[in-house]
């Protein structure tokens, strides 16, 4: 029995479980260093709020990344959606949700259209669209900000966020691992030409992923509005970097393909949130935080990435 367990343990690849070990290590470290303040109710609430935006966007991003694509515009999509949501909320609070999600889906479709139909690399395509969306945002806001009716702030509840998180996590898990679409995303990432020759509609699959990510960013625009009561040109400004960091920290390769695991998005997001929260609990300054975040990021990726199929981590 013991021999069997030891044999099993030997078969485990450290690189596969390192993100999980890293996550557990980060939690234990901060729990110890902050005299057990990580697992207080109030702090768990802060961690959930901190991870909410990163987690949802990383789930959407994981489909795009599985195809070997990138999206630089997700923060701006969230900003535009937040503004549209504020406009809707000023007409009727119940319009805030569709006014956020529909523009998100539309902008996501536009990203997919530019990438697939205009045959531009996703990096260049979304770099261009990011600039266009930012321009729209500034024009609509006239360089300022838009305030939502204060009544909308009461929707900002932890239970709604938890419910949304669980639903999207489970839906993402099902979509990614158990549907034709999820498998097709990874097939496209592994080799798009081979995927095309096996009958996968590569263009449609790619567009769908951008639309999905756009829709999630739209939803986040709504949640940002009910949290802050304001939409400005800086809304969503930090989302892209946080999501990229979470995805890489969790072990999602930029090259996409079958090495992309759904759990990486979840682990990376929570690790990022716990790391940021733990350093705040310890009372570290802005610059100490940056230093530690960068070092942990670098070391985790150096250890956890599987280099079997790549010379350089990409």
């Amino acid at each position: 029995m013991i021999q069997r367990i030891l044999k099993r343990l030997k078969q485990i690849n450290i690189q596969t479980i390192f993100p999980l070990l890293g996550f557990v290590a980060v939690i234990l470290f901060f729990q110890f260093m902050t005299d057990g303040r990580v697992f207080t109710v109030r702090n768990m609430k802060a961690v959930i709020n901190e991870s909410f935006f990163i987690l949802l966007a990383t789930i959407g991003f994981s489909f795009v990344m599985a195809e070997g694509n990138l999206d630089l515009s997700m923060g701006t999509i969230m900003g535009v959606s937040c503004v549209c949501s504020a406009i809707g909320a000023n007409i009727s609070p119940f319009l805030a949700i569709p006014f956020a999600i529909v523009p998100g889906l539309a902008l996501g479709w536009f990203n997919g259209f530019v990438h697939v139909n205009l045959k531009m690399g996703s990096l260049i395509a979304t770099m261009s669209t990011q600039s266009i969306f930012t321009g729209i945002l500034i024009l609509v806001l006239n360089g300022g900000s838009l305030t939502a009716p204060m009544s909308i702030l009461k929707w900002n509840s932890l239970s709604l966020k938890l419910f949304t998180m669980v639903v999207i996590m489970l839906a993402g898990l099902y979509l990614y691992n158990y549907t034709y679409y999820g498998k097709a995303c990874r097939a496209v990432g592994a080799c798009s030409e081979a995927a095309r020759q096996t009958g996968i509609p590569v263009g449609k699959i790619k567009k769908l992923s951008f639309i999905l990510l756009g829709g999630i960013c739209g939803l986040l625009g709504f949640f940002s509005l009910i949290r802050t009561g304001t939409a400005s040109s800086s809304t969503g400004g930090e989302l892209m970097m946080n999501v990229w960091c979470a995805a890489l920290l969790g072990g999602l390769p930029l090259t996409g393909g079958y090495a992309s695991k759904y759990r990486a998005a979840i682990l990376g997001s929570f690790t990022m949130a716990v790391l940021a929260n733990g350093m705040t609990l310890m009372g570290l300054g802005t610059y100490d935080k940056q230093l530690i975040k960068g070092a942990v990021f670098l070391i985790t990726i150096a250890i956890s990435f599987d280099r079997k199929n790549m010379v350089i981590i990409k």
Partner: protein
Amino acid sequence: MRRKLMAGLLVLTMMVGGLTGCGASGKTSAGSDAATGSTAVSSAAVDQSVQGSSAAKETTAKKTANKKPYKIAVGLPDSGSTMFSLMSNNVKTFVESTGGKVVFQGGVGASADATIQFVEDQIAAGANGIIISPPADSVLPTVSSMCEEAGVYWGITFRTIKDQAIKSQIESSKYYVGNCFEDEANTGYQVMTNLNKLVVKKIAIISQAKGNTTTDLREEGINKACEQYGMKVVTEARSLTQASDATSATESFLSAYPDLDCVFIVGTTGTGMHEAVAKAIKDAGRQDKVKMATIDFPDSMVELFKSGMLDTCSGLPSWGYDPFMITTVLANKCMGTPISETPVTLTCSMFDISDTATAEAWTKKFGEATTLYYDKDTMLKTFCKSNNKDLNADFMEKSIKEFTENAIK
């Protein structure tokens, strides 16, 4: 082996991080102590007869030491430029002298999301008091409800509240201690009045995004002066964060408006912006025709006046005085000795500098990060309610006025 080494490095990084956090306060405290007395500014409001008495000092220290420990989180950076370091040194000196602890975090006022996240994190981290500089009024109800729910006191620095509905809503909360801000509209108007005397008519402005209450108010003053003096803001650039952006904006201003009279930096969060604007004007060979004005004294103010590039500027006696004053209000509330039962509204007046000599005098006094606005003992005796029964909102206003008047004497 290599993986083990890497894992070891990861653990080491975490430990270094932990030690950095633990060691910070001690180091700062020593630094603050060293500064005390060497560059102290004395307050006229303090009873001079008590100052020399060591017995009284001991009593003051004992009284303050009896207070319960507390923690304040300030949503401003503690380093990065002289003004940040100067502010954080003064705030730390006061808070630590009264048995408290203070943490700083930069980037908080950059967006509504960052402000809310900061408040939430600091509540979870056990802060008793929070100071923010909100990007817009609309985030305040959320901040207020979060602080109320957690029983955490909070205050605002650098910002007034323009929305009256929001103002009355948050002022009804017993956890809101008040705000300290500058007379922004009047400052904008005053700089324009100075520029009018220099026969400036066409102006380009560099400012923050619309919706920022500070620059919005400054621009209200600018617009008022424009109407009164027949001046005109012909072009603008907003939300610039890099010096290179300021260079590009100024180059565009100068090429698009050959008859431009002035570039006015109304508000910026970037560093090196003033130098970049001055260089762009000089490189275009327009330094004789195009004036330069700014609000908030830049680090390079003396050099800019000496080179003739800067014509007029207006600022606080010290940029960090505003957060320092609201910190004293919040700290007293956290210690259980509030200076007022209702929220206080403190206004700091800005003053003009238009010549090299005054710029040098100001820099001599406030150009060092270690300068203390008041020596440690004066801080304790003047701004602790337990030591100064007269401490109230009127006393604070009086102290601000005296500090401003004596700033460059």
